[in-house]
């Protein structure tokens, strides 16, 4: 749940999602769910020369399991808050139930 909540705080921010097939897509984060599926708007493929397939696509839904990385806008990330949340999640796994 930690990262689900974390990504919810980033809705509206520009992110770059790199997929396991090396395709990287930049776009504005529209929504996330518990599986860390991601919806992006205003998308642009980072290397359009190599991946011209999506030139006409403006928004997309990305299945969470195909994501390798998400590059985040560093100024929008509260690192102290994140670290606290990570410590807490370990302390009280019962609160949310460990999956």
């Amino acid at each position: 749940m930690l990262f689900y909540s974390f990504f919810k705080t980033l809705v509206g921010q520009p992110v770059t999602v790199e997929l396991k097939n090396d395709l990287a897509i930049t776009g504005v984060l529209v929504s996330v769910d518990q599986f860390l599926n991601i919806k992006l708007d205003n998308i642009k493929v980072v290397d359009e020369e190599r991946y011209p397939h999506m030139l006409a696509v403006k928004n997309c839904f990305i299945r969470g399991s195909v994501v390798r990385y998400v590059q985040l806008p560093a100024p929008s990330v509260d690192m102290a808050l994140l670290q606290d949340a990570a410590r807490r999640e370990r302390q009280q796994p019962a609160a949310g139930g460990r999956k």
Partner: protein
Amino acid sequence: MDDHAPLESTGIEEPLDLVRLSLDERIYVKLRGDRELRGRLHAYDGHLNMVLGDVEETITVVDVNEETMEEVIRIVKRNCEMLFVRGDGVILVSPPSRA
């Protein structure tokens, strides 16, 4: 606050507790696909999803020369200020070597 302070210094009961001790430290992460990351650990969860800061990614690419069939190893480095890493690609997490 005070409920996790004492546990932090002593409580190593499960492997993930070692990862908790690396919060806000620079770590080394080995990933599937001959990728390695070095960066500061800001958050993680039980899947080993992570958020890393000031990340250096090292990708090892083996190019095969068509004519000679020689294998040429090429190392690609990339940097990223803030990166979410999906846990299913993680092979190991370790404090980086001091060297």
